[in-house]
């Protein structure tokens, strides 16, 4: 091979390689959203929570038309509780808007003629005065239009910014807009839209009826309700969001406020990835992420194990007392390699294997003079000592605490019951055909009290009757502790 041949060959190789590399790169290497060519025109598909519009498959930026209608209407805030919501698109939070970086968004804000008030919209995804609020101040029965270029990819809150702003937001005027990066987000199996917010009502949590907005509480930041997607239980039971075991789930999480920052957490899941603050950076392996009022985050996780996963604001009284709870129901096969479920449940005995003695304070013990009195005093003892395990109706708890109602074990030989009380009971017993293998601690009761309580049990709960005397208890007490 001569020199020229080699040279030509090398040049060809270089060209081929270059072509190959260029071919592998995305079409628009130096994507500049502000200069992206606008190709065609499309109507944006908006979704109600918790749904999210499908990923954008387009190759090019386009003129994207977004129609959003403001509707003021009464809606459910909790069971039996109604609230006049001011909504973007008829729901709280408002409809989810999905655009692509580089798109020219033509935004139409329509204020329904039946509405009382003027409204506007501030989209945090907008670069420009007021985020569009200045261009969209809209009286009832009118429509305003403005356009903006989606320059910064990320997840953004939108909200009404008409005076008084706090009241418009407190009444439900917020939602999320996603600006997908031009190259798209990584594909996942499920995407959901979850937005937290608070409500301030004249009545307290759960007080029924149409509840008006309470300005004083809003100023004090003393929320009655903290909820996901606009109502207590909006994503619970049959409305739970769902996934299959092994799904990669992406939650678009927003916080409409108006006041509180969310400590967003999913019980039993670790976020594999969090686009914290809705931005481009990713944090990995996160338990709880802060979502500020007027802010957002994208969280992703794989659902390794089936079961119900509870979404909460981990400022936990908001979850269990104000409504900030939602359910992600994951179906599929158990995987003991990841999570076994309960393997053992037994009494923990810090003092070793011996039967425990429950300490009790010294009490004045009345002496029963009749069987009726014995039953009456016994009832009190039962309610204070026995019912926690054996239940108020004597039915016990299947598999854990044997019944004392219609109990063959008891009726056949009341001494066994006396013994269980004065000595404690450990090991397997059979009651009404069920086997129990637990531990009953020795009860610190006097002979009189034991006589009373056993007599009470014998004469109640469908048992066969009879009377136990303190002398009988003393006799059993003197015997060795029985183990069967």
């Amino acid at each position, binding site marked *: 091979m001569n020199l020229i041949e080699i040279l030509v060959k090398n040049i060809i190789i270089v060209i081929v390689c270059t072509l190959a590399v260029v071919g592998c790169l995305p079409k628009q290497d130096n994507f500049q959203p502000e200069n992206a060519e606008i190709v065609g025109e499309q109507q944006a598909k908006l979704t109600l929570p918790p749904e999210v519009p499908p990923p954008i498959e387009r190759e090019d930026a386009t003129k994207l038309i977004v129609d959003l209608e403001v509707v003021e209407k009464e809606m459910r805030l909790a069971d039996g509780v109604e609230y006049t919501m001011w909504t973007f698109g008829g729901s709280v939070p408002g409809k989810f808007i999905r655009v692509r970086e580089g798109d020219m968004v033509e935004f139409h804000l329509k204020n329904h003629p*039946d509405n*009382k008030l003027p409204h506007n919209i501030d989209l945090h995804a907008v670069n420009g005065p007021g985020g569009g609020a200045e261009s969209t101040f*809209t*009286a009832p*029965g*009118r429509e305003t239009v403005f356009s903006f270029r989606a320059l910064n990819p990320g997840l953004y809150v939108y909200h009404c910014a008409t*005076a*008084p702003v706090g009241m418009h937001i407190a009444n439900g005027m917020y939602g999320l807009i996603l600006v997908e990066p031009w190259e798209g987000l990584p594909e996942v199996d499920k995407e959901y839209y979850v937005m937290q917010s608070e409500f301030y009502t004249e009545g307290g949590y759960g007080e029924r009826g149409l509840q*008006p907005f309470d*300005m004083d509480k809003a100023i004090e930041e003393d929320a009655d309700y903290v909820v996901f997607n606009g109502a207590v239980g909006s994503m619970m039971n049959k409305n739970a969001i769902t996934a299959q075991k092994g799904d990669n789930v992406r939650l678009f999480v927003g916080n409409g406020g108006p006041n509180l920052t969310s400590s967003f957490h999913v019980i039993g899941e670790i976020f594999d990835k969090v686009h914290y603050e809705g931005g481009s950076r990713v944090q990995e392996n996160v338990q709880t992420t802060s979502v500020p009022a007027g802010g957002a985050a994208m969280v992703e996780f794989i659902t390794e194990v089936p079961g119900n996963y509870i979404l909460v604001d981990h400022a936990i009284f908001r979850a269990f007392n104000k409504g900030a709870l939602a359910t992600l129901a994951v179906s599929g096969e158990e995987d003991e390699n990841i999570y076994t479920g309960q393997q053992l449940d037994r009494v923990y005995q810090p003092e070793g294997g011996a039967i425990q003695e429950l300490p009790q304070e010294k009490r004045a013990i009345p002496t029963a003079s009749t069987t009726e009195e014995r039953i009456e005093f016994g009832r009190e003892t039962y309610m204070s000592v026995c019912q926690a395990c054996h239940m108020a109706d004597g039915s016990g708890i299947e598999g854990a605490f044997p019944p004392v109602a219609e109990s063959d074990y008891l009726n056949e030989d009341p001494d066994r019951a006396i013994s269980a009380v004065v000595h404690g009971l450990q090991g397997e017993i059979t009651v009404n055909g069920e086997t129990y293998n637990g531990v009953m601690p020795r009860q610190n009761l006097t002979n009189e009290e034991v006589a009373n309580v056993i007599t009470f049990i014998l004469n109640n709960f469908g048992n066969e009757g009879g009377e136990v005397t303190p002398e009988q208890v003393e006799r059993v007490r003197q015997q060795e502790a029985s183990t069967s």
Partner: protein
Amino acid sequence: MNTWIRVIILNLFFAGLSVAALAQPDGMARIEGGTFMPFYSSTEDSITVDPFYLDKFAVTNAEFLEFVKANPEWRRSNVKSVFAEDGYLKHWAGDLDLGSDAEKIKNSPVTNVSWFAARAYAQWRGKRLPTLYEWEYVASASHDKPLASRDKEFVQKVLDWYSRPNPETLPRVGQGKPNVHGVYDMHGLIWEWVQDFNTVFISGESRGDQGELKQFYCAAGSSAASETDKENYAAFLRFAFRGSLEADYSVGNLGFRCAKDNQ
């Protein structure tokens, strides 16, 4: 007391009454002048309103029909578009036809009228639209207090109405209790045009507005007295509503009533 004097006093009293009755234009209430504080002001710049007359009721569909009968240029099909946009009187079936609900709506307040049309109606009646301050002054009265902006119950009622969407058909005028001036429905029925609705400017971007509006914004957000805050918000909503209007707009819950100078 001397009988003669008593008779004279009585006569003077009745004479006074009849003079007042003569001076009182039909269907209008005399509003004694007074001073009040708009929600955004401090004590130093409270507003004084001179005595004037104000319609007891908002103008009804039936009354407005008389107006367009007498003034063909204000009929729906004739009106110049600069004076009234497309929605002008859209709840009527035709130029002079209130539609199948005529009986139901004839005594309801007329809405879907532009500011230009409201002003023309007032002139035709030999009246004018009330000024912003006249309207706000009368609106700050409850049924038993001339200045009720700190009356918790009154303020809550006003706020509640702002929070409710419109009913399908507006009720007829004058169903509630009149306020202390004898005027009905200042709250709870419709929004109302005023002469200078756009002198206090609130743009769409309420948080960034400078000057006057900044004052409003602070007023509504920062006061420590909670009842005052609430009233601030009620007034704030009214000012924001007016700020969203142009004089040719026709809005489904926006009507008007007329005023007259005290002469």
